[in-house]
C-alpha cells in the first residue's frame, strides 16, 4: 500500500486524544495535547529524551490516567470507562514494551499462550498452533521451548511483538521498538511492522527516535517538545521534513545539521 492510499479520507478514527495533559504530580510534561490516530496508521510519537513520550504511552495504555482531558479508543471514552470495559478495550490493544517484558519463568510459547488462554475460547491444540503461527510471523519459528534468557535482545523484542499480536489486536503500541538493535535487525523489525500493518490492518502507535524508521514506516506523527510542553508538529514525517513548522522539528528531523539551510 502506498502512502497516497493512506491519505484517502473515510478511514475511521481509532484513537482520539482531546486536550490531554500528562503530569506526575506538579511536574507537567505535556499540556492540552490533542491528536487523532486513524485506522491503519503507523503513528509515530517522537521528541527528545525525557519529553514524556513513554509517559504519554502509559496514558494511552491506561497505566496512568491523564491529568486532564479524555482519550477515546474506537469511539469509547477510555478515561471514563470502568475497569471492566477498560479491560475489554485493552484486549484489543497489544503492547510491545521497551525490553520485551517477557515473563522470564515461562517459555516463549507459554508467554504467547498466556493472553490466549485468558481471553479466547480456543482449544489447547488451536492455541498451540496459533502460538507457532505468531512466532513464525516474527521469524522465530521453532523457538517455542526457549526461555527469554536463552535468546538475544533483538529476538526478545520480536517475541514480545509475537505476544502483543496474540489476540489479533486492533492497535499495537510499541515503545522504542528498535532501541538497542543493530541496523539490520532494526530494519527487519521495521519491515515486519509494515508487513503486519498492511496484511493484518493493525494500527500502530510507535514511540521512536530512529530517524530512518520514522521516515520509512511513519504515516502520521506528532512531535513533543519538553520546553513548551506542547505538540510542536503534526503530520506525515516526510511532509514535516519538507515543510518544517518550526526549528525544533527541523533540527530533530535533520539531527541538527544544516542549521541555516
Amino acid at each position, binding site marked *: 500500500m502506498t502512502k497516497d492510499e493512506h491519505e484517502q479520507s473515510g478511514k475511521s478514527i481509532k484513537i482520539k486524544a482531546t486536550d490531554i495533559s500528562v503530569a506526575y504530580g506538579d511536574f507537567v510534561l505535556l499540556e492540552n495535547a490533542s491528536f487523532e490516530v486513524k485506522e491503519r496508521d503507523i503513528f509515530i510519537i517522537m521528541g527528545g529524551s525525557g519529553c514524556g513520550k513513554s509517559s504519554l504511552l502509559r496514558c494511552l495504555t491506561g497505566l496512568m490516567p491523564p491529568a486532564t482531558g479524555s482519550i477515546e479508543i474506537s469511539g469509547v471514552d477510555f478515561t471514563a470507562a470502568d475497569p471492566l470495559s477498560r479491560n475489554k478495550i485493552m484486549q484489543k490493544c497489544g503492547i510491545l514494551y521497551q525490553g520485551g517484558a517477557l*515473563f*522470564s*519463568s515461562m517459555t516463549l510459547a507459554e508467554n504467547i499462550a498466556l493472553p490466549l488462554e485468558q481471553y*479466547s*475460547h*480456543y*482449544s489447547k491444540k*488451536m492455541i498451540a*498452533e*496459533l502460538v507457532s*503461527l*505468531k512466532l*513464525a*510471523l516474527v*521469524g*522465530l*519459528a*521453532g*523457538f517455542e*521451548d*526457549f*526461555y*527469554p*534468557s536463552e535468546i538475544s535482545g533483538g529476538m526478545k523484542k520480536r517475541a514480545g511483538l509475537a505476544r502483543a499480536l496474540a489476540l*489479533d489486536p486492533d492497535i499495537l503500541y510499541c515503545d522504542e521498538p528498535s532501541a538497542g538493535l543493530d541496523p539490520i535487525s532494526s530494519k527487519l523489525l521495521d519491515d*515486519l511492522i509494515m*508487513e*503486519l500493518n*498492511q*496484511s*493484518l*490492518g493493525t494500527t500502530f502507535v510507535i514511540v521512536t527516535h530512529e530517524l530512518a524508521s520514522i521516515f520509512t514506516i511513519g504515516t502520521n506523527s506528532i512531535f513533543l517538545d519538553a520546553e513548551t510542553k506542547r505538540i510542536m508538529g503534526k503530520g506525515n514525517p516526510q511532509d514535516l521534513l519538507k515543510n518544517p513548522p518550526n526549528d525544533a522539528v527541523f533540527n530533530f528531523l535533520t539531527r541538527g545539521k544544516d542549521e541555516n539551510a
Partner: protein
Amino acid sequence: MQFEQTAENNKVTITLRGDYIACNNAPSPAHFIADLKEKNINKVVFSAKELGAWDSSLVVFLFYLAKLGNAADIDINLKTLPKNLERLINLALKVDRKPQSKHLSRLPFLESLGEHTLVIIEASLKSIRFVKGILKSFVRFCKSKAIMRKVDFLFALEDCTYKAVGIVSLVSFMVGLILAFVGAIQLKAFGAQIYVASLVAIGMLRIMGAIMMGIIMAGRTGASYAATIGTMQVNEEIDALKTMGIPISDFLVIPRITSLIIAMPFLTILADIMGILGGAAVGITILGISPQEYWQYTRDALAFNDFFVGLFYSIVYGFIIAACGCYYGINCGRDADSVGIATTRAVVSAIVWMIVATGILTVIFEVLGI
C-alpha cells in the same frame, strides 16, 4: 470453520465465504493433506471473492496447509488468496533462523550420580573460593585498601542496627517470656520458681539471645542482601563491576559482612536485656517474685563467660548470614524467578549453617570448659 471444496482432475478449489472470526473447529490440515495425497490431487487453489472478515484462526489453518503442502509436494497456490493474506502467510513461512535443537537427554543412573557429585564438588569449591575472597578483601579492608564506598557501609550498618531494634526487642522479650513460662511449670512443682530468674538469664545470655538474633537477621537482612545483589545480577550490574575490575567481594560483600558482624553483638546485648525483662515480667506478675529478689537471682546467674560465649556465637552468626546472603545473591540467575530462589536459599542455608556452627562451637566450648 466452514468452507466448500470442489475437486476436478487433480486440482481442488477451496472456497472461503463469509467471516472467519475465532473459529475453533478448523479441520486438521494434516488430515486434509493426507486426504489430497490419497486422491492424487497435487494442486490447491482458493476462491476468496466472498471472503469477509478474518483473524488468526483462518491464518493458522492456511499457514499449516501451506507448510504441510510444501512438505508433501502439493502445490498450494497462495496467489489466489487476497493479497494481504498471501503476504502474511509468506511472512510466516519465511524461516530466517533455525534454532539449534535443545536436547534434554536423560543420563543413566550411574552417570547422573557422577554428574551430581561433580556439581556438589564444584559448588563446594566455589563457596570455598568465595570465603577465601572475602578473607582477602577483609585483609584489604583492614589496611583500608578495599575498593568500597563508605556510604554503602553506612547504609548497611544503618539497616542492620537501629532499624532492626524494634523487631529484635519484641521477639526477644517474647522469648524471655516463653522461657520463663515453660521453666516455671517445672520449677513450680519443686517450689523453686525463683530459679526462673537464673534460667532466663543463663539461657538468654549463653545461647538464646544469639540464636534468636541469628534467625531474625537471616530472615530480615540475609534475605535482603540476597535479593538486592540478585537483582543487581539480573540488571548486569555485577558484570559491570567485574569488567571495571572492581572486586565484588570488596565492593558488595565487605560492607555488608562487616556491618552485620559489628551489629550482631550489640543486637545480642539488646536481646539479652529484653529477654531478661520478658522473664521478669512473668516472674513478677504471675509467679509473685518480688523485683528485688528477681534481680538478685538474675545477677547471681549472670556470668561473664556466658555473656562472651553468646557474643562470640553472634559474631559467627553475623558472618554466616551475610556470607550466605551475598553468596546466593552473586550466584543468582538472570531472571525474576532466580531472585526468589536465591533469597530462599540464602535464608535456609544461613539457618542450617548456624545450627552446624552452634553444634561445633558447643563441643569446642565444652572441651575447653568455658
